[in-house]
């Protein structure tokens, strides 16, 4: 009779592989982390924090975002209250240039180094790009040198080049979820189309921001799949959102991700992406609350969106800034890379 194989402890392996070696976890390893029992979450978060400190450093990147064009989107992303295909209460709206300048100023006043201009579109048309160009110029004319990011959907090569010429520093385009789950979330375009935009963005020299939303009916295996697919993209930044079930969307009755599950995701994504900016984004207020936000920041997260989101409200920016001060986490200065 042979002895049963010894159980390999994934956190022990991660300590060697990720913390010491800087090599992210495999899909199977990420899944093992996502299956850790609750009583091992503190150990996971402590390790994830060590990985973040070792490979990213102590600084936190603070960002604000604003919706330039809200609602009326032709796509059917099932989580999104801005899709024109769902009976959501969100009405279409355009933010004017003075409003955009004010939003950028509000963001810079928090000490943030990044301001992301977002539009609910399949991809930008001439009008939208013109508004973005005028908006960026107006922000600069206002004396605001904050880095500008954009999130305008899928791009053509010509549009990528235009954004580079405007001085856009980083482009956000989320893959949202695992490739195997994407057709359950969006039917009007494919995961591959999104990937193609990201490829062009990277090739053009813009930083790549690409993450997704946890809690859209994906399995734990698909969360692990998503983490390693993101890792293979080698993004500069991964925003981590947790689903806010919005009225009128197909996911309006989905349960909010439970706190322990959210913390396992935070730790697992850090161990899969040891060198990437991992940003707390939408839904953390609902999923984790104030205490959980602090646990996440001490569990591998090294960036945060402060203030409100696109259509939902966030914590007051000052609460997050106070939290960072309490945690003795310095905010990244403008012009400095993490």
């Amino acid at each position, binding site marked *: 009779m042979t002895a049963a194989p010894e159980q390999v402890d994934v956190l022990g392996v991660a300590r060697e592989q990720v913390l010491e070696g800087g090599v992210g976890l495999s899909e199977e390893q990420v899944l093992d982390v996502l299956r850790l029992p609750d009583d091992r979450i503190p150990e996971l978060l402590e390790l994830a924090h060590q990985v973040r400190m070792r490979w990213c450093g102590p600084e936190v990147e603070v960002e604000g975002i604003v919706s330039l064009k*809200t609602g009326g989107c032709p796509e059917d992303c099932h989580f999104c209250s801005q899709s024109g295909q769902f009976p959501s209460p*969100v*009405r279409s709206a355009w933010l004017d240039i003075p409003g955009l300048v004010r939003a950028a100023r509000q963001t810079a006043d928090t000490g943030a180094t990044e301001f992301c201009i977002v539009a609910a579109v399949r991809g930008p048309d001439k009008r939208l790009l013109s508004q973005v160009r005028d908006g960026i110029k107006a922000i600069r004319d206002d004396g605001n040198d904050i880095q500008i990011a954009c999130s305008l959907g899928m791009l053509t090569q010509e549009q990528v080049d235009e954004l580079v010429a405007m001085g856009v520093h980083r482009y956000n385009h989320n893959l949202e979820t695992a490739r195997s789950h994407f057709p359950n979330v969006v039917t009007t375009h494919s995961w591959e189309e999104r990937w193609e935009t990201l490829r062009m963005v990277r090739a053009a020299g813009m930083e790549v921001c690409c993450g997704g939303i946890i809690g859209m009916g994906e399995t734990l295996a698909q969360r692990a799949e998503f983490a390693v697919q993101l890792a293979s993209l080698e993004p500069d930044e991964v925003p981590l959102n947790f689903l806010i079930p919005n009225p009128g969307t197909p996911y309006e009755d989905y349960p909010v991700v439970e706190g322990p599950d959210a913390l396992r995701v935070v730790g697992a994504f850090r161990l899969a992406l040891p060198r990437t900016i991992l940003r707390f984004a939408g839904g953390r207020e609902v999923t984790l609350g104030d205490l959980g936000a602090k646990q996440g920041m001490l569990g591998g997260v090294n960036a945060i969106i402060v203030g409100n989101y696109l259509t*939902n409200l966030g914590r007051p920016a000052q609460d997050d800034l106070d939290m960072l001060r309490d945690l003795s986490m310095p905010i990244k200065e403008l012009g400095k890379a993490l």
Partner: protein
Amino acid sequence: MTATGQAVYCGYCGQGLDGSDHAACARRLGVVDPPRFCAACARRMVVQVTPAGWTATCSRHGALDSAR
């Protein structure tokens, strides 16, 4: 012009305040949502969320903002 009038409808779901429980709506409004429906007439409002606040405009009753 500012939104005025007695609150008859729920700003979150747009349903009447009489006879139904809107505690869950109030929680959403307190944490993650700006008002979406005019409390006076239940019209969907045009809402703009910015990093530090929001405005919600009813075509009949005017605008509310987060500073109130």
